[in-house]
């Protein structure tokens, strides 16, 4: 039991962030994280904890995503776009943040699943060995995977930004 507590305290936050970034849906992310830790409870022994947790979470996402991938992705995009675009009289920094998030989401969708997962795992501090374990890659290919993922992400993001042009109007707001 103390093991699960340790696992939880150590990895919950990065795992949820990984999943939120991956899924664009906090509730969904937390459901997957919960299921991951429930599975960890059932597991007798976990050798590479972080790699195991991220692998299980990733597989859960894939399983679910397979079921209704297109529908969900579409909805996510619509929601993020709606949040960004329907913001009339917006609080400026929030509007910017919503737009940033929508652009980042779209850019991330341009990556292959594996590249995306590897990159998101790396961002949560997994080392190459752990990423290789979680995604069943060879350690030697992780660098190439990450290089490709980062390049695509940045390039896709730039392309989206340029395509969009600048958005001018800013509302006023009083909150500090």
């Amino acid at each position, binding site marked *: 039991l103390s093991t699960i507590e340790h696992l939880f305290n150590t990895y919950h936050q990065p795992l949820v962030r990984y999943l939120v970034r991956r899924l664009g849906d906090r509730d969904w992310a937390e459901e997957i994280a919960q299921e991951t830790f429930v599975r960890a409870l059932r597991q007798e022994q976990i050798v590479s904890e972080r790699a195991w947790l991220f692998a299980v979470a990733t597989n859960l996402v894939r399983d679910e995503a397979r079921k209704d991938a297109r529908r969900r992705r579409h909805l996510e995009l619509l929601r993020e776009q709606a949040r960004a675009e329907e913001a009339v009289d917006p609080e400026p920094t929030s509007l910017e943040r919503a737009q940033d998030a929508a652009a980042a989401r779209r850019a991330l969708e341009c990556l292959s699943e594996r590249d995306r997962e590897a990159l998101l795992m790396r961002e949560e501090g997994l080392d190459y060995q752990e990423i290789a374990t979680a995604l069943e890659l060879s350690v030697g290919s992780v660098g190439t995977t990450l290089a490709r993922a980062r390049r695509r*992400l940045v390039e896709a993001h730039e392309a989206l930004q340029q395509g969009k042009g600048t958005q001018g109007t800013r509302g006023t707001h009083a909150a500090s």
Partner: protein
Amino acid sequence: MQHLDEGTIHAWLDGALDAEEASRVEQHVAGCATCAAAVAEARGLVAGASRILSALDDTPSVLAPRSSGGGSTTRRSSSLWNTLRLTPARAAAAAVIVVAAGTALVLRRAPNDLEDRAILASAKGHGAPAVMELPPAVDSLRIARAPERTATTAGGAPDTLVVAAPSRALGGVAVSAGRSVAAKTAQESRVAADNKVRDRVTSADTVARSIAKGREDSTRQKSAVSANALEAVVTTSAPSAAPAPAAVGRALGSAFSNVSSVGCYAVTADSIAGLPQRLSFDTNRVQMSPLMQRAPAAPAARNADIAMRDRRMVSSATTGAMTPMIGAQWERLADGRIRLSIASPARSVDLTPTSNSTLVGSTTVDARVIPVTLQRIECVR
């Protein structure tokens, strides 16, 4: 040596190469302008990708109004409750379980009335307590003992009733048991108010520790082991000014014809107050908690009461359109001030109109008084 491939450069920057390889790369980069440029570019990609991805952390839940501030992920407490799906709706369900299973609040006479008036609120994932707001009309509370559970009461200051359930006992079960159990227990428990009793709440600040036995799936129970305590706070508004007739809340409600406070406002307050940046006082939205809808069938008067309550909902927005805030309400006090009650974080702000378009008040956070100003703005929906 050949030029470095991009994968090796990234591996090097990520510190994934062993010492020998790393020094080889380093040497090469020092003497090769092409590769030095590639390294510089790779650094840019590493940083750029991180920056882009961090924008994704600003992903809100569907209903929970996010307070202003930075990355919401990092701000969330790393509690098992989060993992155990403590979404607003679920937290609301959990709050009902805690309250219903752990205690029965029994007020003299007029059974069900309190239920009518209690506004079920929810906690965000921040570990903020779930709140049930009770109207000023609730004058006295009594904690009844429920089987299998303990409830202790203590006298003291008159404003707050805290119902706390140590999560070790409640665990994920309460949360995952979810709405069905919540609805059921809510029905089972008798929560009643006496809206005619004039005496103030004298037994305030009552703390009930309720230990509910999880009866579900042991796996979930196990996972609850390190969960933080879930607290449900039941707040009764302190009777303001002179002995407010208990019926005053209702009278105000039914006589509520002054709609001048209705509208949208920009909120100025320290972010610690956790208030939305924009909110609106609504009178025309009918928003009922599904849990409350499942409360026992009500007499006609009760329905009228519910409608009245629902017309005083609050919506909020940080970005985009106004969204109804779960558990938030506003009311006009006898002295003309507006009381804004927000569930998550639990805040109560009494606002004094200083002009047609400005409401000024304050709220207390961790013993700090935070000034709050609401400035009327154009409503855009």
